[in-house]
């Protein structure tokens, strides 16, 4: 089935074979490999994207259900420059293996867009759906906290 949607501001389309996820379609059909596939059950957040204004796990969205939707992936966040969240994570050395990073970046960027001055507790709560398998949470949270109030 032909699926037409907007990804990072551009009109894109792909053919689905069946019930594959939006994550699969982004990576395999549109070659946007920033969003990562890990748990495939919505536990880890490494596939986080913004779908029609909502932060979701793209592994839990059936690709055909994204027809006509607007999707923002990590590739579309900063435009030609790095997004402030990406810069902050680089500065605090918040990347170890890097597999969770795109999900954290998308989730944190969305949080900072929705909430002007989240407290450290708010940040922890809102990023509860993103898991770092290297357990590098300290640097990730410190990086995001440096951005609070800067918007």
């Amino acid at each position, binding site marked *: 089935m032909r699926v037409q949607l907007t990804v990072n501001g551009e009109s894109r389309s792909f053919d689905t074979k069946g019930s594959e996820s939006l994550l699969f379609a982004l990576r395999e059909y549109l070659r946007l490999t920033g969003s990562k596939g890990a748990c495939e059950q919505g536990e880890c957040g490494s596939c986080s994207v913004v779908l029609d204004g909502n932060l979701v796990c793209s592994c839990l*969205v*059936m690709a055909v259900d994204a027809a006509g939707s607007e999707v923002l992936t990590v590739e579309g966040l900063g435009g030609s420059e790095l997004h402030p969240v990406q810069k902050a994570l680089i500065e605090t050395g918040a990347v170890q293996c890097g597999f969770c990073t795109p999900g954290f970046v998308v989730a944190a960027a969305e949080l900072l867009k929705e909430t002007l001055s989240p407290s450290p507790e708010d940040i922890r*709560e809102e990023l509860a759906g*993103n898991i770092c398998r290297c357990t590098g949470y300290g640097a990730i949270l410190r990086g995001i906290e440096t951005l609070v109030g800067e918007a």
Partner: protein
Amino acid sequence: MEVIHPTDLDEALAALAAHPEAVLLAGGTDLMVEVNFDQIRPEKVILLRRLAELQDVSRQRIGAGVTFRRLESGDHQALAQLARTIGSPQIRAAGTLGGNIGTASPAGDALPFLAGLDAEIELSSKDGTRRVRWDRFFLGVKQTALRPGELITAVILPTDLPDCQEFAKIGQRSAMVISIASACVFRWRDGRTRVAMGSVGPTPIRARQAEEMMSAESNPGPAALQEFARLVSEEVRPISDHRGTADYRRHASGVLARRLLERCLAK
């Protein structure tokens, strides 16, 4: 795979009547896990996520397509409390009240809320709408009274809402956990008390002896609270599994219910 994308509820119900075997997809947070793990290969899918008719919320009627993210800031305190404990922000932005009801997991976090308020589930088909009270709807583990061709369209709450409502659940962390035990306590100013427990039986359990005992107490002291907790622990029917033992769940049920009641009494 055939995809049916209805633009309104009538179209969805017509499609469901024509294809009662079709798989329903709203938030996808349950279905897509099964799809990703190849436990289910849907041949026909009806897409519900964007049906406007399922998105309406009023004080007495909550559309089945409303996400937990929206319920986090709703009118009903216990419903908002339980919504905030579900999954993660990503899950809450997708998962719907109707999905939680339709899946009918013993650990479904919205279920004690519905049970405690004697809510009705609104079921629609091409031939009309019927309302089924929660205890006639939830029949067993993932078993409901939903008939082929029917769609969960809303939850109907009573007009006589409690003056205090509290929800809490126990899990290993505060996000992304499946409840080991959950509880909803409702209390009216005249003393009427209701207690509904989740994850401690195949369907939500009302602790009716505890309710009866506590409803007669206008100003319960420590002994009454202890008896209340004991009755709740006695009335649940938990099993042991990898998340917790039956004994732990039994004990935790009494503690949870008592703690929530104390919150109401302190108001």
